[in-house]
């Protein structure tokens, strides 16, 4: 069994916590996480013939004013970078967080998500433009609301191990 710490990185309200909730469906009591500012969840993925257990760290609650702390990234084997398709500024935040992650953790794997695909009509730029603007790799379009692409996103991260 492989266990990996992963985290979610992205601007405020892009849907990080919603994505985790959608993926994990965990009922775990999060009282302590509120104090600590991080919520830890877990999900097991099947990769080929083995199990990968993802220990998912998500900044809890309103992370608007929360700093992404070094300890949050420390030991992280991979991350989901999340942007909100309707907010172009979330792209820049995502790019900077990615840089920061790779500085601290050069071997980390990332999967890039553009979320809120259910509101594609309201997208700031078209899906193709999103693809073009994300210059470090492929993009997975997701919707935490409908569940579209969510499994795929997490799974493609787990596939690295």
């Amino acid at each position, binding site marked *: *069994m*492989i*266990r*990996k*710490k992963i985290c979610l990185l992205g*601007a*405020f309200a892009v849907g990080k916590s919603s994505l985790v909730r959608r993926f994990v469906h965990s009922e*775990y009591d999060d*009282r*302590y*996480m*509120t*104090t*600590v*500012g*991080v919520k*830890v*969840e*877990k999900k097991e993925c099947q990769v080929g013939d083995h199990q*990968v*257990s993802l*220990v998912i*760290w998500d900044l*809890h*609650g*309103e*992370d*608007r*004013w*929360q*700093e*992404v*702390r*070094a*300890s*949050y*990234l*420390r*030991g*992280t*084997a991979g991350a989901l970078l999340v942007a909100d398709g309707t*907010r172009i*500024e*979330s792209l820049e*935040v995502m790019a*900077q*967080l990615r*840089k*920061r992650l790779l*500085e*601290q953790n050069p071997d980390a794997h990332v999967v890039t998500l553009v979320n809120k695909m259910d509101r594609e009509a309201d997208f700031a730029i078209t899906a193709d433009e999103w693809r073009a603007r994300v210059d470090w790799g492929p993009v997975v379009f997701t919707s935490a609301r409908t569940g579209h692409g969510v499994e795929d996103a997490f799974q493609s991260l787990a596939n690295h*191990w």
Partner: protein
Amino acid sequence: MGDSPIQPDESRHGSEPPETGDARKDSQEGALNGPQGLSENDRWEMLHDLLVGPEEARIQELEQVPRAPRAKDVGDVLAEATRRSAQEGPELAEALAPTIEQGLMSSARKNPDDLAEAIYPVLGPAIRRSIQATLSAAVETLNVTLENSFSPKGLRWRMQAWRTGRPFAEVVLLHSLAYRVEQVFWIHKETSVLLSDVSGVEDSLRDPELISGMLAAIQDFVQDSFAGADEGALEQIEVSGFRVLMAQGPKAVLAVLVRGIPPESLSQNMHETLESLHRSFADELQEFDGDVGRFERAIPDLQGLLGQGAKVSEPGGTKKGQWLIAAVALVAVLLFAVDWIQDRNMNSKRSAALMALQEAPGYSVQGQVGDGDHQTWTGFRDPLAEPWSEVCAHSTEELDVDIQWTPFVSLEPEMVQRRAEYMLQPPFGVTLTTEHGSLTLEGEASSGWVHRALARASAVPGIGRVDASGLVDIDRRAIETHARSLDGLTLPFGAGAGRLDRGQPVVQARLSALKTLDERVQEYGGGLLRLHLRATLGRMDDFERGLSDRRLVEVQKALGRLGLGATVVEVLPAPESDDSRSPLSGVRIEIDTLLPKP
């Protein structure tokens, strides 16, 4: 856009309190409303000073530049400029961040207490409030419980309270104090990934991976907030009625979840275990890549930390002791209190029931699944164990648990004793004791019981040795006594007579006594009566010597007519010498009883 700004220099973040890197918090309403509940700006005054300090330094720098604006001018516009800049984008925050951080860092280095203090007022009152609330709730519930406890145990404790002049509640707490290490987690320090874990109680509600993640996050929070490096590492925290003890190593952390109050030695053991794990897994820890299968070998070491502790010993009489007890009792009340808030009544009842079952002979709870509402407990129950109602104060309905017992044979000493009594059914007059695998029977019993008991005793599970040396078989004793009383009897013949007069009362009586003895031996089962016949001669009747053979035949015939089922008859030659002359002339019978040994 209000997203967290990106800090260019992350090497410093490890020692920053949350949020302090955000320069806009001074200027924006609600800037301190983080999830930590840091809503009271005034509490951050000290921190504010730390933030503004470096700005002033920067202003002084500007002043030294030729033709630079005067400090006053800058000061007048700085606040407004900052506010506007923050609305437009993160540039100013980014520009200021390194300086602010530096100021903060050096300030924190000079006087780390300032930081701790700045955060403390926010945490302090919340903690105090919750303790107060839980304390009063616990005392109330405790009182109710106490008032209603009239079990024999409760009465005994009442007596003790009365004798020692100590509050009853205190006595109860003393008797109830115990600890149990329920789970052990071995966590990789860098990645906070759970390497291996063991559990003493099955509990699907507590996922070890989540718990270890949570512990790591708490640990990070404390270290980030209060100090750098390892200095601030937590050794102990309390979470929902549990204590978590942690031992820090260079590569890994050991955490144990304890219910109750653990002894000092537990933490010692943890450090020793952790050191030895670091030695045994040096390479694996160094190369750790998420493959936790390589750490399964550690399970026995981790299991070494599981277990539970005895109750705190009986209270002593000294003043100092009393204070100590009062202190311990207070801690216990606090523990109870935390328990209560978290688990409410139901869970405490359930834990009490689990504890009781754990202690009750013949019960072993193996699994506990379900949620706060309804649970299913599985385990083993010896059919001879006390019924549930004797063990637990609450019925399964009250606890809302389904119980699935698998019957088993317990080898706990109480159960061995009980099983031996059940299987052997000792009659009145026999005492049965079991100790260390041996069974001792003492007293008197019928041969039937003795035979059955001895056949069964060594088949009692948990019994390897049977000592029946003190056990008397009363039937055997009776036969032996009876035989002894008849041994050497003579069947008399009239002077010169060759025929046995079976009508003579003494002959009749003696023959029927022999018949009875034979019957008793038959009843005993497998026994044998051996009769040795010898002719005896009266003093005067020399001529009777010639009658001896005839008389022996007569007696043999008479015995034959009795139909003795367990008897063999042997004829001994008549003695030659005169010494053997007896007052009676006839045939003397000596008796041997051969009874089988059980």
